[in-house]
């Protein structure tokens, strides 16, 4: 029990040291105020201890100047911490464009990862060192939360929509991966490890074993199998809107309003097509809820996203 007794978590991502720096800044602020209060209380308690029961202290009712000082000084410090935390949060919220894209499905009680090249793994996530990795995540059932303490990142994984998070590992090694949102009986066993590898070894790992087809190819198969193309063929007069170049665009909706075609929108349009009808089309698409697994949905979404890439390349 004593041989492995860390007091501070390993820092193994680009975010980690930045979060730690802010953590230590707040820690210093806290230590200062704790010491200040403790020192004052102890000093006063000892210095002004009751020596005789007949003492009658002079009344001091208050001081507006002091009230202002001890409101504004903490306020100013609080605003500094807020601004720092907010800037870092916003900076860490946006994955870099070149990030490696990995897809995550959480379910009671396991994590399933799909690499774009086709590798699939459970409760284990292999990533290269020094390259940003972006996770697009969804849950099959209840809310989960993917947490890698060594990277200082955590994001809830929700049913019915995609959330994303990203990180860039800085040190090869093996790190804990936890479910942080209570999700039922075996919540505490819904954990695994992140294996950070040198890029060359990572490429080797990606190619080896049961790699199988890429997500895009799987998505294309599903797309054909479900007959999506019969309506979504990019031709004039098609019954459904064209999906080419759709991803990331703004879509005008029937009855006014618009929506950005992100992963969550694409997913919703497959399982609940009536929710948002594209302007100029009829609400005739049937739901595919229950027919496509959460992983299948991800594959379809990746395929539709790739249609955008092809369009952009032309």
């Amino acid at each position, binding site marked *: 029990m004593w041989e492995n007794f860390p007091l*501070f978590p390993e820092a193994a991502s680009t975010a980690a040291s930045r979060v730690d720096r802010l953590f230590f800044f*707040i820690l210093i602020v806290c230590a200062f105020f704790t010491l200040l209060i403790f020192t004052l209380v102890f000093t006063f308690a000892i210095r002004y201890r009751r020596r005789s029961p007949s003492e009658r202290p*002079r009344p001091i009712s208050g001081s507006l100047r002091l009230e202002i000082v001890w409101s504004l000084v903490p306020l100013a410090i609080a605003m500094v911490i807020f601004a720092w935390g907010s800037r870092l949060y916003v900076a860490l919220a946006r994955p870099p464009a070149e990030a490696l894209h990995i897809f995550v499905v959480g379910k009671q009680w396991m994590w399933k990862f799909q690499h774009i090249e086709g590798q699939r793994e459970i409760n284990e996530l292999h990533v290269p060192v020094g390259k940003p990795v972006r996770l697009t995540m969804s849950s099959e059932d*209840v809310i989960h939360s993917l947490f890698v303490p060594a990277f200082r990142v955590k994001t809830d994984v929700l049913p019915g929509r995609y959330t994303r998070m990203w990180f860039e590992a800085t040190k090869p090694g093996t790190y804990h991966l936890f479910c942080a*949102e209570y999700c039922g009986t075996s919540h505490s066993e819904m954990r695994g490890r992140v294996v950070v590898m040198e890029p060359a070894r990572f490429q080797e790992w990606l190619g080896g074993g049961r790699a199988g087809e890429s997500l895009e190819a799987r998505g294309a198969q599903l797309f054909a199998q479900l007959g999506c193309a019969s309506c979504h063929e990019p031709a004039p007069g098609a019954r459904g809107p064209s999906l080419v170049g759709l991803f990331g665009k703004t879509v005008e909706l029937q009855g006014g309003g618009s929506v950005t075609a992100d992963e969550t929108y694409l997913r919703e349009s497959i399982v609940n097509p009536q929710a948002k009808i594209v302007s100029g089309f009829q609400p005739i698409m049937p739901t595919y809820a229950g027919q496509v697994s959460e992983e299948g949905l991800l594959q379809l979404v990746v395929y539709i996203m790739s249609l955008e890439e092809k369009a952009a390349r032309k």
Partner: protein
Amino acid sequence: MTTRLELSPPPQHYLNWSYTARSWLLSTDHKRIGILYLLSITFFFFIGGAFAVLIRLELMTPAGDLVHSETYNRLFTAHGVIMIFFFLIPSIPAVLGNFLIPLMIGARDLAFPKLNLLSWYIFLAGAAFTMAAVFSGGVDTGWTFYAPYSSVYSNSAVMLTGIGVFITGFSSILTGLNFIVTIHTLRAPGLTWFRLPLFVWAHYATSLIMVLGTPVLAITVALLALERLFGVGVFDPRIGGDPILFQHLFWFYSHPAVYIMILPGMGVVSEIVACFSRKRVFGYSAIALASLAIAVLGFLVWGHHMFVSGQSAYASNIFSILSFLVAIPSAIKVFNWTATFYRGSIAYDTPMLYAFGFIGLFTMGGLTGLFLATLAVDVHVHDTYFIVAHFHYIMVGGMVMAYMGGLHFWWPKITGRMYPEGWAKFAALVIFIGFNLTFFPQFVLGYLGMPRRYHVYPDEFQVLNVMSSAGASILGVGYLIPMIYFVWSIRHAPVASSNPWRAAGLEWQTPSPPPADNFPETPVVETEAYPYSEMEVEVVDV
């Protein structure tokens, strides 16, 4: 101002005018109802505590070797539900507030004595449902009942517990309503708002939250029931619901509820600090208004529980800055209490030891809140033991310390007996040490990344968990000692005078224990609160 001469214990008072069960169970006397609440919440405190003991025992080892995961999840849920809804929320308001508010404002009872009794019965009815749920298999959702786990997936007594919480909420609403009306309408002649004891101000602010916030909890539970029982899609996305909506609704009540739990404690500490420094509280109006500011701002920060939930970054930023703002009134209070000690005449009686403990632990609990309000840091510590440590510093280090301080301070008034000072000081010390040993290691565990609600955990977290469990056993002993000497004191301790602390405040100007109708004649108030410096010094040995 002169304090009255010591009043000898009256031959007939609120405790001894009748001993029949009927005279207790149908009493509309706020003092007797306070005692009824005291007995009920003490019972729930020890039940909730027993669950905590089992949790800490299980966490001594990384493997899940004492109980199954299913059981463990029921244990922490029962601990949370019981401690929050059946101990912390009613604790100071329903016991001390009930007992003291009419006495402090020179009234003969609360404005609605029958509603007061009704609120206790509603509380018991809610507790009965929840206890039935806990002991008939239990509930495993955590006290936060997050959907869709609670509304669709959990195979446990969610609805029975939910009904219990729903019902108990109404007892809270009635108590809040009663306090608000009482403070508005029943103040003694001359007792203007800014002459009120800060205890009353704190309860006024608390009552506002109870009345405005609790209905939202009821709505949330009702929606949960709609989905769970009738399959109406509210929270589960599969049937068209939104799981984030649940979190918004739940925290809209449950964050302000944190202030329901801590504000009354702040009120108690203000009374104790003034009395044992023999000085008016420094910055009286700053503290009074800070209570109101907390009550108002407390309603605007719920989204800080959702920084990693997928909530929009804009919303998170707004909730973050508001959370920093709500820290300021708390800071103001701590500074003012500290300044009250300056040039005071400070005595170290047990209530004051608890007040010192409160100030220290609340300061630590409050300051660690800064980490959680900070967006980028919260991402890492959210849902870890850091949170668990933080809120136990506020709830146990703050609230329970204040409650214990208040119980000791007003014990002579409530029972007419003193408590054994030596044992009491010893217990206060044991509680302080046990508390810190239990919860400080959890801050470290949290930053290391140990998630909360984990039944089994990686080996490297064991040392800190063992420290925490060791602390919990000390803390448990610390709570048992007062339990024993309080019971003992009722028959065997020295009889208390009407004002053993030579305290200001109307509650001390009536005999101990007070007569059933509180004051033989309506008192008239001519001074500010806490006129310690003007009080005649009379040292009376009783």
